[in-house]
């Protein structure tokens, strides 16, 4: 379920070619079309789209959004080390830092929610789908958008004929996120293993 917080600001960042902008677009679409909230998307074009740091800024709100740029993010999703270095200071203290575990080596300054999204995408047969796995993960961990809205947005944004595969990727990320939350909960309750 989407949290009833007034306004959430998101930065999705990584290499060009990782589908960063598409990920941002799906988040925004899900919020607007599925969850009936307002959203904006600012994407950075330029040389980045051929491999440098690439960035999508998404704002989701209950009210009309006047200014679409993100200064301090509630959710920062990093899919490359250089993107992480560049944006790591732009996250609120209570925000979520989300990374691709194999591509980002965080500095340990704050709590990280990480997922081997690219590796999982490879296992599913397509590196291209790392961004969709990431959306699944973000959906589970942050409750930025509802699961239903996210699935619908994925369905309508990916190329025809690949819907099922992408939904599978979404599920993979989503379940990983749920599992991660469950794990943290258990750890907080002092249960790390299966045997007491």
């Amino acid at each position, binding site marked *: 379920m989407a949290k009833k917080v007034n306004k959430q600001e998101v930065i999705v960042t990584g290499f060009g070619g990782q589908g960063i902008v598409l990920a941002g677009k799906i988040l925004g679409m899900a919020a607007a079309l599925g969850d009936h909230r307002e959203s904006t998307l600012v994407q950075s074009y330029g040389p980045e789209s051929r491999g440098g740091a690439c960035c999508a800024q998404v704002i989701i709100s209950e009210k009309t959004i006047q200014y679409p740029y993100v200064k301090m993010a509630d959710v920062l999703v990093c899919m490359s080390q250089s993107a992480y270095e560049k944006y790591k200071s732009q996250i609120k203290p209570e925000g979520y830092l989300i990374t691709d575990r194999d591509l980002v080596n965080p500095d340990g300054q704050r709590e990280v929610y990480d*997922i*081997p999204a690219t590796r*999982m995408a490879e296992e599913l047969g397509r590196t291209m789908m790392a961004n969709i796995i990431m959306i699944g993960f973000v959906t589970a961990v942050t409750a930025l958008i509802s699961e239903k809205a996210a699935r619908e947005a994925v369905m309508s944004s990916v190329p025809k004929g690949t819907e099922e595969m992408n939904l599978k990727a979404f599920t993979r990320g989503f*379940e*990983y996120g*749920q*599992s*991660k939350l*469950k*794990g*943290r909960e*258990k*750890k907080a309750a002092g*249960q*790390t*293993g*299966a*045997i*007491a």
Partner: protein
Amino acid sequence: MEEYKIILFLCNWGPHTAYQQLQDNGYQIPLEVKMIRIPCTGRISKALLFKAFEMGADGVAIVGCNSGACRYGSGTLTAENNTEDTRNIIDLLGIGRERMRLATFLPDESEALKTFLADFCEEIKELGKSPVMPAKLQPVEVYDESAQQVIARYDAYSCQDCGKCTASCPLALSGKTFSPRNIVSDIIRGNDATEKVYADVHACLTCGICHERCPSDVNFPEFIRDMRCLLNQTRISGERIQPHGGFFQSLMRTMTSKDILPDRWKWLPEDIKVDPGSKTLFFGGCAPYFDAFFKKHQHVNTVDILADALRLLNFFDVRPRLMEMERCCGHDLLWSGDRTNFMRLAKLNVEMIQDLGIETVITACPECYYTLGFEYEKNGIQPGFTVTHLYAFLENEINKGAVTFKPLPRRITYQDSCRMNRMEEIINLPRKLIQRLAVEQFQEMKDSGRSALCCGNCAWTGCDAYSKALQVKRIRQAHDTGSDLLVTSCPKCQIHLRCAMEDPFQETELKMEMIDLTSLIARTICWE
């Protein structure tokens, strides 16, 4: 008045004299007491003690000489152990441990013997009749089937006489004069009634390597199973080829009694959480009985596997239901050739599980999985629930991520389970799971995967010097990998291999620590 049956196993030496004295003095031994004169209490095995209950005894007393007075030295001590184990087993079964007593008397203690008998009779009458309905008194279903039909079912006519089966059979390779090819051709030629064929059909381990190799795809294990069912219809089933005096077959037949109320889960550790309202049932299997039977012997602890399986389910927030009255799945009855009683167990289990409104059954035992998941339906019993092997559940959950494994500084190797290796649904799971573990080393044995060697026994049928040699060979293979921990996936592999390791002639050379994969996972899994 209901007629009670109390079996009195009476040692020939000390107490028999006392018994005779009672008779000489005109004392009427209670009519319900059926006395069997025996040479020594130590010779009455658990199988014999239990058999009395299987056949409908309401009480069993074994009466011998005082420990120091045993003519053969250790008879009384053996009887004490056997009695204790048998009492534990009948207690698990819900027959009640009070129905079995051991006592000792000196030749001149006739008065004490008299009091003992009267007292025991009274106690049994208070307990009432035994809930066991002897399988022998129930109608035997006769399957109108000929050997030729069995041959045709598995298309054994297409045997090309290539001999690949014999060349790969671990029993033949252990030096036994045993040839699957010859069994097939003997039966095709109509010689299915000979002693040799009967013995060979029951010696096979049903491990299935021959089927793997056979170019004509003759499903030898299933062929053997059906031949056993056929051959045992017309003769008293062969307890002589059943190790442990046929105890396990006897136990399983007893479980076909509707009225017994087993208490299978009484040992359950407190940390395990179950939910009586759950639609998911954990089916444990006979591990508690195995442990009770082998307690003194081999320190077999297969209930740990069940406890750890449940802990793993709990770890992933599944609180299953347990069925106190769970019966044996029937695998070993069917595979030792007793289809009638297998069908009874199958119907009872399915009825009970359906009554609880169960949708999914999870089990950690390959044989239970195979039997509940496939064999019931093949035999015309529609389960109406899905059956999942614990490994499939685990693989699915672990695959979701966010769990990891604590490092374990052990070098491991893996003993394949024959049944698991013949089920495409789960064949790869154990290795997938093993690959996830953080052990120091995982080394396969020389024969592994589809050509793995059997642990040496199946369905408590046909254990002999050759299967023992096979086990020794297998354990040596395990040692050759340089491992210090042998991982299994079937509780029976643990039992049979442990038995071989206890071979007094090999002393400690064969010893190797064993653990079930379920336990290994439970001990090292953790949240990331």
